[in-house]
């Protein structure tokens, strides 16, 4: 059997620390098992869904934390509970629809054990047997056999949960600047515009590295650079969250000193495309407004390990990452607007949604890049990626996004929880 010490030897982290990420982390099943225990069951907060998905008592959605299915349900007092979707009897899932509504309990299909909306076991079929014979052993105590219930934190209608009693309170976990941005973007009644998901043929961490990497945004996504959607030359920066584990990348599209580098610097792909005269015939993608009165046209915020809040101009979305084994990941998208959006703004948000998702003019490459890397590193499990833009540490570079500090911040959190 593989012990923890063996795993530490397998993952020989180079002396450069978080400026390197060993390739073995992206496919080793033992590493994956360690992550499930230490990150997904460990001291971290995980996004589950939105309160508006649970409009009434008994409304539930089926979400996930790592490999574990989580029922998120609203009870009669308006409290929201996160319960492991596994009957305490034989391990049968209690629900299998993505969302639904129950009256006041979850009944297991297998032997009809019933749990209330807090997850407490309230009845066991034939508990007293039949005609005085059989039945549960007299010492059986229903109070000891409820569903596993997680700690829940709600902020601006977003629902997070954690398995661990050791996880710091949510606001301490992410830090005040990160609480402030959630309130900035989600501090008004939200409305869901739609949902879909994407299968990524790569390890989940390759996707999260991508999210936390502003370096690639205008380079891999040439659409960004050519269309002046997001360039490193725009005024902007990276705001690191508590302990450096979380980040917000932001930029102001109206302030772009030196942006001509994207048309002139021949080492950038956007300059090659500009030579073709690429431009939009329809103006809807550039017909934007300042949603928050601060000129900040882009924010990408993550909550370590797997949650993303995205503001691409007026295209707003939550992303949730679910690992499906070491080499496969599901990425869940929820596009949203505000309950008081007029028809015009709603239509424009829906048009700007062309930038996101599997067909996103900006995001489509993110669905592929991890899979390309996953394939190409298979033969070099003893090597590591190199991240030295902006130094080797996790301090933010003031007023600049030309840094991989936020990616190193991901690895800082990762190492702290996994001990690798």
């Amino acid at each position: 059997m593989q012990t923890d010490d063996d795993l530490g030897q397998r993952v020989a982290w180079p002396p450069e620390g978080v400026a390197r990420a060993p390739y073995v982390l992206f496919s080793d099943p033992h590493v994956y098992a360690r992550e499930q225990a230490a990150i997904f069951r460990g001291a971290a907060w995980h996004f589950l869904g939105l309160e508006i998905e649970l409009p009434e008592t008994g409304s539930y959605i089926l979400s996930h934390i790592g490999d574990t299915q989580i029922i998120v349900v609203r009870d009669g007092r308006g409290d929201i509970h996160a319960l492991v979707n596994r009957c305490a009897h034989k391990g049968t899932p209690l629900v299998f629809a993505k969302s639904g509504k129950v009256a006041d309990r979850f009944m297991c299909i297998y032997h009809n054990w019933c749990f209330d909306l807090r997850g407490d076991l309230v009845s066991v079929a034939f508990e007293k047997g039949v005609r005085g014979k059989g039945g549960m052993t007299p010492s059986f105590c229903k109070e000891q056999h409820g569903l596993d219930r997680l700690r829940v934190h709600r902020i601006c209608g977003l629902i997070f949960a954690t398995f661990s009693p050791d996880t710091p309170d949510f606001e301490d976990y992410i830090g005040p600047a990160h609480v402030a941005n959630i309130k900035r973007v989600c501090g008004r009644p939200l409305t869901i515009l739609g949902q879909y998901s994407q299968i990524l043929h790569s390890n989940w961490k390759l996707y999260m590295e991508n999210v936390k990497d502003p370096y690639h945004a205008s380079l891999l996504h040439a659409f960004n650079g050519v269309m002046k959607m997001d360039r490193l030359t725009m005024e902007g920066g990276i705001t690191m969250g508590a302990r450096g584990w979380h980040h917000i990348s932001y930029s102001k599209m109206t302030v772009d000193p030196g942006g001509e580098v994207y048309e002139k610097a021949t080492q950038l792909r956007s300059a090659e495309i500009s030579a073709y005269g690429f431009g939009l015939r329809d103006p809807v993608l550039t017909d934007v407004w300042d949603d928050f009165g601060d000129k900040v046209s882009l924010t990408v915020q993550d909550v370590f390990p797997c949650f993303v809040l995205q503001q691409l101009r007026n295209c707003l979305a939550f992303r949730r990452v679910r690992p499906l084994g070491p080499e496969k990941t599901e990425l869940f998208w929820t596009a949203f607007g505000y309950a008081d959006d007029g028809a015009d703004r709603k239509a424009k948000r829906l048009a700007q949604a062309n930038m996101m998702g599997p067909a996103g003019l900006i995001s489509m490459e993110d669905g592929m890049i991890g899979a390309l890397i996953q394939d190409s590193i298979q033969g070099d499990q003893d090597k590591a990626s190199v991240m030295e833009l902006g130094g080797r540490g996790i301090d933010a570079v003031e007023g600049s996004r030309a840094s991989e500090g936020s990616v190193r911040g991901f690895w800082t959190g990762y190492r702290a929880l996994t001990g690798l």
Partner: protein
Amino acid sequence: MDAIAPVTQAEARALLRDYVNAIDRGRLGEWPNFFVDACSYRITTRENEERGFPLSIMLCSNRAMLFDRIEATEKANIFEPHSYRHILSDSEIVSESDGALTMRTSFLCVRIMQTGETMLFVSGEYIDEIVREEGRCRFRSKRVVLDSSRIDTLIAIPL
């Protein structure tokens, strides 16, 4: 002025056939020519439709946006080279009014990567509104409703 002749089923099926052939044979530059100027093209999912969510995976609300999308696909976006093969069902006529024909057609779309890897990529339904303009049949509206909400990797080429 003479009344415009209504679109016949045979003409509509020919349009559908030519449309998928253009995509499957990689002639993406022709894609906008299958639509009238004031057109709508959407890819969405059955789940979003059933839950009343208006989100599209791809949305073009006029012909200029079709040109923009295909130009981005060919010049700006990067993805592993691949092609599609569409298989269409018989079509169900939903309505005929003012010379426009609305019909529903099931489709399977197979994706072929340049490595040769071939998979059933998506299945779903086309809901098409077809009109005659300048003597030619074209789509005024094409709604692509995918059966699954889960997309493998990415959708670069329109469906």
